[in-house]
């Protein structure tokens, strides 16, 4: 008998430990659930952490209204199957209440607006900790993120004044009105997530798998057609065989042409690819520090 864990088991164990700490240290935590693979893995880990008990916190989805219909379908089925609690924050509500206004133009996206809705959902439900599936390998501002990320009463991240995080001791102490963002799979890479999904046989939305889709090209990115997509006259709809490496808003998530229609093929593709998965996200490309700026304002 070898008394050491494989790296995936060690990462799993670490994530379970953190999720249990969240449940123990906070009064009213929640799991942010986007319907993307990382949040699906987090939910799977939460089930493991409390089995045979139920996951003791709700799933929270900030719905921009511009999601892929497949994502929403997947989310609703999962919640129904497991009897999980789901809270949805609608960006449309924030728009209707005049708290945010829609971006204009062809590249308009609601991605930036969701921060407002997220902060409002946190406030209205008095969540003191929100877990999310962000990983440090995704983006360079995230490489400096803590497992327990402290946010002030405005939901802001102060990267220069983060609490040091040592060993496996997590400090979730806070003042009234402040809250935490917590990232149980911080130490996982994109490959770890895919290998874990395969090893654990976790269901995913079909968007991740190769399928024929009506798409159009813009600035070298393949976008899915859909009712919210404003197309320029020269942008022609065509059918291509594509899949998505990440799932965000339809307006900012690009597809890749791919024949990978099962997990093994996706893993091969991820292994061979030379761009990061966020390379298909136009929300990160707005500036060098786009992610850092959004995080400071309260984005994940």
């Amino acid at each position, binding site marked *: *008998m*070898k*008394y*050491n*864990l*494989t*790296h*995936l088991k060690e990462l*799993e*164990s670490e994530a*379970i*430990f953190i999720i*249990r*700490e969240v449940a*123990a240290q906070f009064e009213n935590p929640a799991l942010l659930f986007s319907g993307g693979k990382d949040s699906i893995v987090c939910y799977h880990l939460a089930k*493991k*952490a*409390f*089995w*045979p*008990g*139920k996951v003791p916190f709700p799933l929270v989805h900030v719905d921009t209204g511009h999601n892929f219909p497949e994502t929403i379908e997947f989310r609703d089925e999962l919640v129904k199957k497991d009897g999980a609690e789901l809270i949805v924050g609608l960006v449309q509500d924030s728009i209707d209440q005049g708290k945010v206004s829609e971006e204009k133009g062809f590249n308009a996206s609601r991605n930036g607006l969701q921060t407002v809705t997220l902060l409002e959902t946190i406030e209205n439900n008095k969540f003191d900790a929100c877990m999310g599936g962000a990983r*440090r*390998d995704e983006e*360079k*501002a*995230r*490489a*400096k993120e803590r497992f327990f990320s402290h946010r002030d009463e405005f939901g802001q991240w102060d*990267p*220069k004044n983060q*609490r*040091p*995080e*040592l*060993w*496996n*001791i997590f*400090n979730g*102490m*806070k003042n009234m009105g402040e809250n935490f963002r917590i990232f149980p799979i*911080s*130490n996982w*890479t994109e*490959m770890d997530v895919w*290998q874990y999904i*395969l*090893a654990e046989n976790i269901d995913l939305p079909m968007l991740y798998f190769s399928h024929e889709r009506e798409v159009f090209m813009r600035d070298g990115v393949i976008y899915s057609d859909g009712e919210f997509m404003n197309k320029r006259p020269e942008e022609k709809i065509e059918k291509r065989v594509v899949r998505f490496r990440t799932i965000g808003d339809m307006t900012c998530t690009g597809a890749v042409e791919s024949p990978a229609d099962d997990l*093994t093929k996706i*893993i*091969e593709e*991820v*292994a*061979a690819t030379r*761009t*990061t998965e966020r*390379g298909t996200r136009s929300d990160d490309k707005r500036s*060098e*520090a786009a992610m*850092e700026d959004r995080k400071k304002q309260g984005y994940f």
Partner: protein
Amino acid sequence: MSESNSTAGYLDMELLRFTTAGSVDDGKSTLIGRLLYDSKAIFQDQMEAVEKASKKIGGGEVNLALLTDGLRSEREQGITIDVAYRYFATPKRKFIIADTPGHIQYTRNMVTGASTANLAIILVDARHGLVEQTSRHSFIASLLGIKHVVYCINKMDLVDFSQEVFDKIKTQLDDFSSKLEISDVRYIPMSALLGDNVVDRSKNMDWYQGSTLLYTLETVHIASDANHVDCRFPVQTVIRPQTAEYHDYRGYAGRVAGGIFKKGDEIAVLPSGFTSKIAKIDTYDGEIEEAFPPMSCTILLEDDIDVSRGDMIVRVNNQPDVSQDHEMMICWMSQRPIQLNGKYTIKHTSRDARCIVKDIKYKVDINSLHRLEDDKEIKMNDIARISIRTTVPLFTDRYQRNRNTGSIILIDESTNETVGAGMIL
């Protein structure tokens, strides 16, 4: 497809966490950049972003440091402010690098990065040999209980790949590190810039018969670094489904902090001292026979005794120190100096308490390792020996025996900031 990603191999890989320390300009970023680049952990779009940013800052060469300097102010100032975590894998192992800045004022970052590391890489500039920062980095690695230290004598190309230079530095470091508690010390002559002895063997240093850095990282034996002797299970939370199917289920969830727990073991629960036997060790994937660090699992006991978060399950005949008085080395991490007789919140495993700082014994000069018994002003980035008394007993082991049960953090009660990291003596 590379072997590291083939599914069968992937599921069999070990995880090695290491930290890198070095002074400014000793080639740390170049070394990390090379490890990441040669193992294909740097993607094309990241590389393009770095090229773009390098041009903006000026200077002809692509600055690999920009890969790790993620924050805007870091890029602007050209310094690394915070610990950055980087990831790469080879067919044998997956690696997590805690890349810590080398400036003198960032001891706290180095301590943070070292706290979870199995191994430390300490860069030494071959032209300068052992300098103050080398001593400091070595001391911190030792203090934080890192069992494997690899000194990379870098920039060998600038000393004509001289064996004599390498041997001289090696002797200096040998003398110095023998004063520290590091069991496994290695020396590698290298040129990170040219790639000599990083991934590939150097063609310029035939006299060096040892391993390359990557081979060392892939093969260093870490399986026995964890404590497999003293059984410690801090209870994180109690699982009681109270459903029809699991009506009487009462499981204690946590992560094994030491030793190997088996079904049938006679255990005691601290602080109550009640004893029982392990009825079952449970996980979502089914019952398991044994649990060892760092496994997360759920322990069920034969008897219905009162156990809650902050309690610790241990073996009857091997118990930790149960005490309210603790001696420790502390690394201070706050702008506000430590207050003698000050009260702080203390966190230890899953247990919270309050404590009072009873005594400050001495400050350590981390460059000379001298004890400064007259200097009791413990400021940010200082390391000192203190004694504290806690409101309730903690269940501790010496830090050098068990990192999980020997470490504490202190929290300022007015700001809730983590202000101190303590290693129990």
